[in-house]
């Protein structure tokens, strides 16, 4: 599914980048139809967004079977709450991914909480997802552009964002993993995201 765009990306006036205005408008329209119970529109929404949502969930959860469950939960939630989407507050894709990401993070933290009850040592061998972002195999133009933007961040910003977003760790955990003073990681995450936002020319 190269590009994952429901319409040819060439139609996006902004050129490169994640969904251009046309895609964003289509996704938003499909969401609105879904909120009225239009299952065919929801199927199109799924086809347009499932690869991104599932890929992100899989990255956070890692276990394929669990990731499928979480992706399924996320889409049921998207169906149930579609009426709460407000295109004045952000893009449809961002809204979908926010729901998927939140569910994925909830899943890994719940699993961690239950395993923490069983064993006192965890964390010690937690592999640091060091800059895995740059190794992701997706070869779309958008992905290359995002990876390029990631390279404009400082190493600490990049690592902090990667651990938080792809690792599902809290900013205090990220601070510990990166040997930063507590309270610093949140600033690195914020600064890095602001830079990404400005580099990629994201709306808002």
């Amino acid at each position: 599914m190269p590009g994952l765009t429901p319409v040819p990306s060439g139609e996006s006036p902004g050129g490169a980048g994640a969904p251009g205005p046309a895609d964003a408008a289509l996704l938003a329209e499909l969401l609105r139809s879904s909120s009225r119970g239009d299952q065919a529109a929801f199927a199109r929404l799924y086809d347009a967004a499932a690869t991104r949502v599932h890929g992100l969930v899989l990255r956070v959860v890692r276990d394929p079977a669990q990731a499928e469950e979480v992706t399924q939960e996320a889409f049921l939630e998207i169906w149930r709450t579609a009426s709460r989407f407000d295109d004045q507050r952000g893009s449809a894709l961002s809204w979908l991914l926010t729901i998927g990401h939140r569910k994925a993070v909830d899943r890994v933290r719940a699993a961690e909480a239950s395993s923490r009850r069983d064993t006192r040592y965890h964390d010690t061998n937690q592999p640091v997802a060091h800059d895995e972002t740059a190794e992701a195999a997706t070869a779309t133009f958008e992905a290359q552009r995002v990876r390029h933007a990631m390279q404009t961040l400082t190493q600490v910003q990049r690592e902090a964002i990667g651990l938080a977003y792809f690792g599902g760790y809290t900013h205090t955990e990220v601070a510990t993993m990166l040997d930063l003073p507590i309270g610093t990681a949140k600033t690195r995450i914020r600064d890095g995201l602001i830079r990404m936002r400005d580099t990629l020319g994201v709306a808002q």
Partner: protein
Amino acid sequence: MNDHVPDDANDLHLLSGAYAVDALDDLERARFEAHLRTCADCRVEVAGLREAAAMLADTTAVAPPPELRDRVLAGIETVRPLPPIVPDHDASPGAAAPGASRRASRRRWFPLTAVAAAVLLILGVGAVWQPWDDGDGTSQQQPTAADRVLGADDAETVSLEVAGAETKVVRSKSEGRAVLVATGMPPAPSGKVYELWLQDATGHLAPAGLMPEGSDHTLVLEGDATDATGVGITIEPAGGSDVPTDSPIAVFDFSEATT
């Protein structure tokens, strides 16, 4: 986990990035969401940072197995989409400019909170002025435990949106009780139940009762809430649990309470 909790709005503002990528713990998230409702700058910033974070998903795209599509589409057959959030219709005449409705829905928390407060006020004094209660004191009812907490002089309130529902916890130290008021609570997942917890200063969570079925509740929490530092809600297997088996879906932090 309180040692890093920010103290002022300036520090809270710096949590926008961590919030946008779900990197806050439950208590911080609850606090930041309370802050978001009053800080338009943070709402705009979070929206922009979420857009930026969403672009990271371009680098991780993986198609799910085809069966998942069938399961999802079969699954939605049994799920009713939530209604939209309808803006208040009692806005003052001057404020009813065209295009204002979306804005109104975005800020619905504030008017609704005010309405809820007004309703409570009416309920609290209802016994005094109910027109159908005139001249005959016999129908005057004893206030319930919930009424006493909600009407207490020292009542303190923490409001949160939980699973799309408007909820709040009101605690009165003089009454020693806390009350959860929920409106529009979605059903717990099949075979599950919402369980309430009272948290003490050591972080210990004591079970404080199960939420019955239904969407609207005014529940007095079990247990002494005098020294509780917060109230949590988790999703537990039917029948409830003695200790939480999952991270809370909401934490009402009394240090954020308003009186």
